[in-house]
């Protein structure tokens, strides 16, 4: 019986270790949030939002970075969502099970694992130099659109797959064409899932730094971007710039900007959860 006891004790010890490992990440997360708040809460004031970057930390603000983020995100959504949803519709509702389909799927799966900085190199050659868009908002948005496409497609496919087959069959039985079925039956029901996926994909894009640095997004922008062809900076690049400086004053600004970025991310995720909850209740099957 002693042996049995020892095995039981080993089990208890292991459970404690496994629980510690699970909680470890959360403890680090808490420390990160605490450190950012401790350093950054002090700089949050109205002028932090309305001022441009500056060589003097106490005067530096995030105005141009915040506007740049809004511009880039709006255009990224505009480009990536139609393409992503269309690709998902093709793969779920049309694609025959052949080599081409499998090749496309393999491509999407692999693209999801390509380092984001590689997309930056692609954007640099294709959009900045090839299409001569220079270091513009448009070039940044196109680059990020390609980057989040695999996430969007995966989320949209999942949403489409969740629509019961019986609904499609019923519509077909009434003589609807394939597109009519998708347009009037499948898409409305898949909408909450697609919207949720869209917000989550955009929340990935909003924190991306490396690809935008590679295409040459600037860090010192002391004007408002007013159109898609203007030069720009975004919040993560501004944070990177401030972290890289030696002065503690800039580190505090970086922490403040991180707080703003995390707040935006948090509200986007909250919105996604809310949308899923609200829209799912309207359509029940």
């Amino acid at each position, binding site marked *: 019986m002693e042996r049995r006891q020892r*095995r*039981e004790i*080993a*089990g208890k010890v*292991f*459970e404690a*270790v*496994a*629980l510690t490992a*699970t909680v470890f*990440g*959360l403890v680090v*997360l808490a420390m*990160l949030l605490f*450190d950012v708040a401790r350093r950054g809460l002090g700089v949050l004031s109205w002028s932090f939002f309305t001022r441009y970057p500056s060589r003097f930390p106490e005067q530096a603000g995030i105005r141009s970075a915040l506007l740049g983020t809004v511009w880039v995100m709006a255009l990224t959504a505009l480009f990536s969502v139609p*393409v992503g949803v269309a690709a998902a519709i*093709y793969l779920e*509702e*049309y*694609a025959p*099970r052949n080599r081409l389909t499998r090749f*496309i799927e393999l*491509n*999407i*799966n*692999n*693209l999801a*694992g*390509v*380092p984001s*900085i*590689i997309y*930056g*190199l*692609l954007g640099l*050659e*294709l959009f900045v*130099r090839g299409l001569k868009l220079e270091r513009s908002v448009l070039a940044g948005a196109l680059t990020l659109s*390609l980057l989040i496409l*695999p996430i969007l*497609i995966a989320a949209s496919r999942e949403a489409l797959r969740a629509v019961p*087959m019986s609904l499609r*069959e019923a519509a*077909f039985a009434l003589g609807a064409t394939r*597109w009519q079925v998708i347009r009037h039956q499948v898409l409305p029901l898949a909408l909450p899932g697609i919207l949720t996926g869209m917000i989550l994909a955009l929340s*990935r894009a909003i*924190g991306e*730094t*490396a690809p935008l*640095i*590679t295409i*040459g997004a600037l860090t010192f922008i002391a004007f408002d971007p007013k159109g898609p062809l203007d030069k720009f900076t975004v919040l*993560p690049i501004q*944070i*990177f710039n401030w*972290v890289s400086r030696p002065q503690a004053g800039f580190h505090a600004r970086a922490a403040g900007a*991180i707080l703003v*970025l*995390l707040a935006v*991310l948090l509200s986007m995720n909250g919105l996604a959860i809310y949308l899923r909850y609200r829209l799912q209740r309207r359509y029940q099957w």
Partner: protein
Amino acid sequence: MGLTSRSAAEIYTVRLQRGVAARWREWGELAIQGLLLFAAMVSVFTTLGIVAVLVVEAIPFFQQVSLVEFLTDPQWTPLFAQKHFGILPLVAGTFLTSAVALALAMPVGLLSAIYLSEYAPVRVRAILKPALEVLAGIPTVVYGYFALLFVTPLLKRVVPDLETFNALSAGLTMGVMIIPLISSLSEDALYAVPSSLREAAYALGATRLEVALRVVIPAALSGIVASFILAASRAVGETMIVAIAAGQRPILTLDPRRAIETMTAYIVQVSLGDTPHGTLEFRTIFAVGLVLFLLTLVFNLIALRIIERYREVYR
């Protein structure tokens, strides 16, 4: 075969009536299908674009720098007067930070996967799992801040001779970032193990730990390995943490306390500088990018292949 068991694509093969209006509608349907197919092909074009860009810029580079020098020269100094183009120091830097990250994330990620799948009560799991996912959603630049301004000062108290920029804190922070990747993919694999296997082991008198270690983990091993490989791919391609906290000094070392430079950090360094486009110096980032792309491609394809295989076994 019943109608309900068919896929969406199969049940669409209903022929339309051959009226004039119907034929127009058929054309419209075809046009829509073509557009959708084009959207799906964007991913293929993206891959082709990446390969084309990297190769087109790397070819002139390798016309001036021999492949042998690129792969064997122990120095990387393209931006200095005395130029050396050996990628080894950058590869060593990438290897070092990734190894530190994986050394932390593999055990911690796997342990939390085991806890969530085998031990955690349903309600605890419902809280812990999404909470862990938050770690994966934090922008990498924020982790970079954390590595440089929190982890490094903390480690300096316990690790002697730790440099301000070092592979250790960048690697550890990156490890925390990829914990959820490993734990969530490994948990999927553990969860997919049929409960009949567990029940059989319990019936033979095994404890929970023995069931987990000797039955469930071996059965889910391929999925766990796939999660490790994907994590490695992620670590190799991670950019902002190492660009901020690991340094910009390409030296050939395996000492994690020192400042190093990874492949990704080098691309950032050149992008931020004023090296003119079209020069040999600038083309280095495409040669480095090509190596990075090929490395992660191999990792990703191996992991995808493994995941596909184990799916077939358990469905």
